[in-house]
């Protein structure tokens, strides 16, 4: 449900959790990101930072500058001034990522898991397609690549985005690996629950894998201007499009990345309007599949 009033609770001496509801619903994340933006712009004394998650916002404040009670009052007043979710507009960059679906590297990773940990593990793309009533792995690619994805939050590993499809016709779900994998290739694309993600670096993991992008989202040596001095590429409220490409195009992009001549495809002039989004959603036949 979406709560009538957000719920505030303390996290020790310097955090407040603001909960907007207890279900997976993009609207709750829009509320969290809307409040994060309003808070940033408010210049509230004592605000250190905030971090949106799916249905909540974590606020970090300095107790020397503002009390818990005053910060809650400030947050309540900002929530009220936001008005209806429809009014929320968020700056949103759009990233397009060349993606080789059904790639050999994630297949190798899955095969390794089958050999060493669980021989019964079905090949991930077939598993996800079957669970979601899709024809086959090729339809999974079609469905997955036909939506923009919303960066709801980042975490687990610095820069790892938790992505929700904005197009309800691309909504699919699947369980995570149990037990988890001991390794995952950098750039692997996959999903668990209803969230998709890209692995910033090679790490253990639990998402079902079905593609790989050569484009770095983690840049500690600051090779690419697209990071704008940061080490991680994304911020909450960005959008991502996975562009299916051939092996040749993948290799070409990878070569340019190695040379440092790769050009990131980023659109920065757009705002995300919740009202426009909802109007569009309401026109769709959500039972359709690409």
């Amino acid at each position, binding site marked *: 449900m979406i709560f009538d009033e957000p719920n505030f609770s303390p*996290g020790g001496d310097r955090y407040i959790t603001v909960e907007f509801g207890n279900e997976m619903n993009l609207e709750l994340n829009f509320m969290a990101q809307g409040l994060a933006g309003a808070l940033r712009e408010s210049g509230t004394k004592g605000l250190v930072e905030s971090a949106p998650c799916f249905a909540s916002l974590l606020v970090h404040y300095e107790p020397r500058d503002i009390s818990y009670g005053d910060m809650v009052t400030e947050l309540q007043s900002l929530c009220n001034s936001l008005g209806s979710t429809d009014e929320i507009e968020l700056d949103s960059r759009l990233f397009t990522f060349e993606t080789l679906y059904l790639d050999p590297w994630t297949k190798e990773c899955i095969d390794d898991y089958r050999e060493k940990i669980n021989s019964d593990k079905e090949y991930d793309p077939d598993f996800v397609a079957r669970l979601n009533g899709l024809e086959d792995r090729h339809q999974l690619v079609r469905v997955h690549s036909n939506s923009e994805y919303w960066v709801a939050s980042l975490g687990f590993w610095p820069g790892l985005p938790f992505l929700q499809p904005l197009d309800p016709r691309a909504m699919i779900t699947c369980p995570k690996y149990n037990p988890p994998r001991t390794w995952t290739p950098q750039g692997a694309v996959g999903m668990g629950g209803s969230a998709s993600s890209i692995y910033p670096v090679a790490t253990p993991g639990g998402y079902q894998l079905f593609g790989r992008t050569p484009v770095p989202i983690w840049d500690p040596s600051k090779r690419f201007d697209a990071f704008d001095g940061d080490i991680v590429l994304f*911020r909450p409220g960005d959008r991502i499009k996975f562009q299916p490409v051939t092996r040749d195009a993948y290799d070409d992009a990878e070569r340019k990345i190695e040379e440092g001549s790769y050009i990131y495809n980023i659109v920065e002039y757009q705002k995300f309007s919740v009202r426009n989004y909802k109007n569009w959603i309401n026109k769709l036949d959500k039972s359709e599949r690409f």
Partner: protein
Amino acid sequence: MLEIIKPGLETSIQDFPGRIGYWDQGFPPSGPMDSWSFRLANILVGNDAGAPGLEAQFMGPTIKFQQDGVIALTGAEMMSKLDGEEIPNWQSISVKAGQTLVMGPALKGSRGYLAVVGGIDAPDWLGAASTFHKASVGGIDGSAIKAGQVLPVKAGQGQAGRKVKEACRPQFARDKKWQIEAVAGPNDDWIDAAGHEQFLSYEWKLEARSDRTGYRLDGPDWTFTEKATNKPPENGEFPSNIIDQGYPLGAINLCGQKPIILVNDGPSMGGFICPYTVPSAAFWKLGQIKPNEFLCFSRVSVEEAQALRIALDDMCGESSIET
């Protein structure tokens, strides 16, 4: 310049308060686990309280000084010796080029701190020098210090013979039992009365598999309210599962039935409840407790925890020094 002869056990460059402002991109602050001791080491040598210094864990490093200067050791007692002569913690000491400092095993406490006049000259990684080695970020090259490395030091003015007043030093637990403050929340209403009672009365043992990302506590199972057992399915299958949420630093995160205190290098978000949060003023105790010692939690209010933080911050300054 500090020449590293032996690195010790994952000795790392840290600064205070660390990498702040990137929680929404998944970056933890890192920084010293016991910032009380760390800040006083800097104050002793005349640095800003937060200047980059070294955090030694359990087994200290061996370091040769390449230039004259002033240093201070604080935190765990590591039987430190300068050219073979024992030197005390909690006071500033002159060192000469060519002298060697050996920090040994931590006898009392877990983490020892070394500040050098001027501070270590480490590059800026998102506004901080603090090492986050899990992601190879911070310090000189993203990792703990290594044998053969030479750490550059900034110029500075320091004075030997300054001491931290006895009353201004952290007092380590003598009977292996640490009294740790905890504030209820953010998810305290998922735990039933018996669960709260048990959390506050049990002596939780710190497991060996604990590090700068999380402190695993050994103890009994938790019991829950209906909020945990009767919830929309997208919250997950276990009672302690919740729709992924941001984690406060210091959260006592209930991973299945296993409480893990999320500390300086911990995760920013995840799908488990956090019934209690250890406030910032108690973090130094987490920095100094050893595996197999015990944590006894006492509940404090938000306001009490904030008063403790402010009092601790005030103590990490010149007023705590005597000459």
